[in-house]
């Protein structure tokens, strides 16, 4: 069956062990996590987890129900078919030999990225955008020689009235 990409925004109690409950649920039921990002919200006792998972349509129903069943999960909002903004942040350390620098700078410019660290032989580029942009810049930088990448998972918020 066809697998789709789903984006879930989950509000949870900010308590020790909550992430472990969610990760444990996914591993014990053989669900798949593509990316996961956790941070505080404006309410001190609540955290938001943004999760991307790829699965078949009937599995996402189980995933949402199983998440809701966890006592520490307050709400599960499936953003997939709603209007939302999403971002992913990446730091990309790329090999920057003098003859390649102009080309790298052009790519950085086109993608509206920033160079946040410069060395004798490297640039570190800060990229923020959706996952397509992330994949595109990486494919363009790969020929230059990517040394290291650090990347967050996707974070997302529903647009106004999109809740």
């Amino acid at each position: 069956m066809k697998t789709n990409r789903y984006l879930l925004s989950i509000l949870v109690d900010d308590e020790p062990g909550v992430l472990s409950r969610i990760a444990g649920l996914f591993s014990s039921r053989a669900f798949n996590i593509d990316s996961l990002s956790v941070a505080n919200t404006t309410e001190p006792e609540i955290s938001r987890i943004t999760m991307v998972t790829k699965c078949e349509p009937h599995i996402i129903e189980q995933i949402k129900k199983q998440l809701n069943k966890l006592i520490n999960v307050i709400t599960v909002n499936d953003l997939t078919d709603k209007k939302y903004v999403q971002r992913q942040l990446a730091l990309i350390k790329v090999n920057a030999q003098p003859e390649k620098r102009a080309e790298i700078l052009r790519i950085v410019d086109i993608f509206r990225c920033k160079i946040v660290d410069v060395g004798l032989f490297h640039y570190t580029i800060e990229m923020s955008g959706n996952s397509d942009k992330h994949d595109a810049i990486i494919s363009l930088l790969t020929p230059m020689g990517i040394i290291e990448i650090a990347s967050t998972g996707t974070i997302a918020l529903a647009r106004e009235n999109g809740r």
Partner: protein
Amino acid sequence: MKLTGAQILIKMIREEGIDTIFGYPGGAVIDIYDTLAKQNDLKHILVRHEQGAVHAADAYARANKSVGVALVTSGPGATNTVTGIASAYCDSIPVVIFTGQVPTALIGNDAFQEVDIVGITRPCTKHNYLVKDINKLASVIKEAFHLASSGRPGPVLVDLPKNVMQTEIDFKNPGKVSLKSYKPNYKPNKKQLNRVVELIQKAKRPVIFAGGGVILSQASKQLTSLAKIANIPVTASLMGLGAFPGSNPLWLGMLGMHGTYRANMSIGNCDLMIAAGVRFDDRVTGNIEKFAPHAKIIQIDIDPTSIHKNIKVQCPIVGDCKTALKGILQLMENKIFNENATWLDQIKAWKDTTPLRYDQGKKIIKPQFVIEKLYDLTKGNAIITTEVGQNQMWAAQYYHFNKPNHFITSGGLGAMGFGLPAAIGAKAACPDKLVVDIAGDGSIQMNIQELMTAIESKIDVKIVILNNQYLGMVRQWQELFYDKVYSSTDMANAPDFVKLAEAYGAKGFRCDRPDEVESTLSKGLNSKGTIVMEFMVDREESVYPMVPAGEAITEMLLV
């Protein structure tokens, strides 16, 4: 009022209306045991292994329709409870387990008898807690009982560091529990209930399939009315036995791998299935593609995750079984329902041609015969607990359960060693009832030490050992599917169970002749005290019908 953590614990357990708990002391819970010794409100039954404490609490909950409580120490005490917790989790039984923990300052230091029991039990509890702050103790205990017993019930573990139990605070009753993220939905959707009635009216070959959820929500009465009013035959999962009277003509017997021919055939041929409080376990469905292939399925369950998990259903109803069935019955008033005569005749024909059967000769005792005699002698009124394996299946097939909460077995997990501690727990809950553990010679040895608990606490249980000197269910699979290579299933090297019973201070009787089965049972059941009755049964008797794993449930191996 100034109270220590240990005093708060006992007070909060008592406030839940619980009079008996099961446990085993140790360093981390010594303060709780000290407090227990200085009060009379809460009775503590000392088990001989912590697994036994949780099984006993599980059965106490089921027999008493309340919550069971186990209390154990940290480290090994806590890890020994895991099998019991997993069993209660699979069967959705409300149990609260209190484990001792090393003092908060030592947590994470690999201290003596420290384990991360909250981490270990996360996947097999409904929820669990580590209480680091004495001020949260009372509210956490209250929440634990609330979670264990509401919605789809299940075990909840509370880990209690030693210093929290020692600390004294001004006690304030936490009042009502309110959890922003936990609001189980009891009330079913009215539209869906209307659809149920329509579907029943249209159906020509309806079947009700009852599960443990009917017993947990105490909906047997409503289920029975529904069946009688609309002339619908009823089958049940292992966990659902007793939800519908076994003596009623509409009763089909158990469904599944060792279900009756007529129950399995009914599911294979029905055009409507009303599934109440079931989760479509693989032991019930067999090959899922071929399960109820002609049926529209109505599924009532309080847990939304049970719906569409294993089986696609056409009419899902999320809600409490009892509330849903009551609603359906109301909508059925003044309506006319089919007689279903052709369908019921077909079922009767299946029963007549292919009943449950065994041949009791003159020489060797058949295990099924022992159960049938036990049913006759107890008039079906005993609470039956079982171990796991052939003994469990024969008990399910041949003891006709007429009432709910009278069959207590480790269904989902299938934990050997369940029956004896469960019998103790059930008897502690219902001292006026006869409680019988139907056991095999293999599984009785897994928690045989609990005989001492029964003797010491004067909790009289009767134990029927069907001794075939094999781990019979595995042997049966080896016979049928592994060329009779009886690898590690021969249990002929066994203790003398009669002498063993006597060593613990119980009485033991052995029987090896068919004509003495009834007199042995009668003597054992009518004797005071805890009694072990050992029946030397046919070594190679197998449980039939049997659906080989992965086959359609209508593809049965018969005797």
